[in-house]
């Protein structure tokens, strides 16, 4: 079905453009301003060109944060996407249990992000928390406040708990959209469970899966409140991700210039990745 050419449609989009410009473009301009100037006071600012950018790009602490961030985001995608698909396949298709399980699934998504951190902070305490006590009693030496690896893993598990639901919900929606005749045809052909998944469900899920990957990637890249509450970025810097380095820089130390430069670089990285994902989605739409 071809869409009509209709320039007046701009009028319908205008409110969105205005609202989003107010909250996106104006601030972004301020950030660009900061990133190019050294600011001492309201009336004394100097143009410093790309100095802040070079400074930020050479900062080893930020390299560390970026690498941790990339590993974390990859781990998030590698665990949550397959897990989400798997669980979505196990969900009941019809009946009263559908609503119940949907509601239960959506619950973790509705916990305010700092509360997520708080819950896990207690939940995984080695002395009184459920996860901590169980892990130690079966012989692991687990202590997320002392051991970097434990802390990192705790943040990962927390993220899996918090966000896998979103992947499940998306995949479940995708599965529901597959018309019954596909399954009937498969049954007539005597297809195995695996074949049904590989040749019917997976191709049909392609679209939602890409959205799931995109959303999960973006949100894992922006993770802030949860590790902040859970570990405060420590021990050492083991759970300091990009957002947190940025917040420390901007609000903690008031290094406006470098923070702004860092913001822009950060934004560009996300944009680049997202653009690649977006193009992939468009291509798939065209093919499928």
């Amino acid at each position, binding site marked *: 079905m071809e869409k009509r050419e209709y320039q007046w449609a701009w009028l319908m989009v205008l409110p969105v453009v205005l609202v989003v410009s107010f909250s996106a473009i104006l601030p972004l301009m301020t950030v660009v301003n900061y990133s190019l100037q050294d600011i001492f006071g309201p009336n004394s600012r100097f143009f410093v060109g790309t100095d802040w950018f070079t400074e930020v790009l050479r900062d080893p602490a930020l390299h560390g944060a970026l690498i941790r961030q990339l590993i974390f985001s990859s781990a998030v995608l590698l665990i949550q996407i397959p897990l989400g698909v798997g669980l979505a396949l196990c969900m009941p298709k019809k009946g009263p249990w559908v609503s119940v399980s949907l509601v239960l699934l959506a619950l973790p998504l509705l916990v305010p992000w700092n509360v997520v951190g708080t819950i896990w902070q*207690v939940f995984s305490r080695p002395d009184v928390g459920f996860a901590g006590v169980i892990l130690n009693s079966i012989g692991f030496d687990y202590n997320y406040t002392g051991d970097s690896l434990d802390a990192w893993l705790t943040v990962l598990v927390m993220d899996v708990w918090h966000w896998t639901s979103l992947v499940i919900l998306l995949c479940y929606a995708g599965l529901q959209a597959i018309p019954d005749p596909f399954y009937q045809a498969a049954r007539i052909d005597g297809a195995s469970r695996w074949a049904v998944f590989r040749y019917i469900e997976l191709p049909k899920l392609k679209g939602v899966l890409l959205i799931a990957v995109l959303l999960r990637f973006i949100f894992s890249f922006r993770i802030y409140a949860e590790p902040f509450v859970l570990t405060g970025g420590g021990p050492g810097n083991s759970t300091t991700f990009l957002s947190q380095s940025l917040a420390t820089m901007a609000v903690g130390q008031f290094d406006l210039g470098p923070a702004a430069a860092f913001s822009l670089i950060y934004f560009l990285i996300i944009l680049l990745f997202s653009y690649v994902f977006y193009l992939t989605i468009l291509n798939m739409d065209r093919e499928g």
Partner: protein
Amino acid sequence: MLPIYWLLMMSLKTNQEILSSFTLWPKDLTIANYVKIFTDPTWYPGYINSTLYVAMNVVISLTVALPAAYAFSRYNFLGDKHLFFWLLTNIMAPPAVFLLPFFELYQSAGLYDTHIAVALAHTLFTVPLAVWILEGFMSGVPKEIDETAYLDGYSWPRFFITIFLPLIRSGVGVTAFFCFMFSWVELLFARTLTSTDAKPIVVTMTRTTSASGLDWGLLATAGVLTLVPGALVIWFVRKHIARGFALGRV
């Protein structure tokens, strides 16, 4: 579900029990924490503020996103693809990037510490998300319906409200749910843009830190209470969500 159960149990325990030993269920069951929150009026404004700005956000997002999503799903116009991608990039914007500029912007606009400031700040990601989701739903509605309505002499607004909206009711429900969810859980903007008058509940909760350390029981109780509105919303829109998910892009 375990961590949520844990939170619920914690809210029913005394602080001593939480910190002294590991128990699966409360030994000394207590509702003191709940009593404390419900009887202490300093807790109320947090919940009211949060509810207010979340509601504002949902209304604003839906109002501006509906016509835009319709335009994106039905028409080709100059720069439509670029505009759509630009909107999506805003979902990706890390809140930390916008923190300081937002603070300055809203302060100079005289909106600092008002509900509308937080609501507007959250539109940064709820509006694009709403457009995106709604576009998916609208594209699922056959175009013939629009054309038949025009032939029957419907004006656009009348067609949109009486025929089109009911068709994508589930989509609107799902969209509202997502806007609600993101606005409800967001903390960074909400905290930066408010001081006293519009302070959200997530910020009020940080108050539980006292000289003797954190008041875990009280914190857990407040946490449980932040879940309640969310759980209520899902419960009411659950049918729409199940059906909406089946129809649309999300």
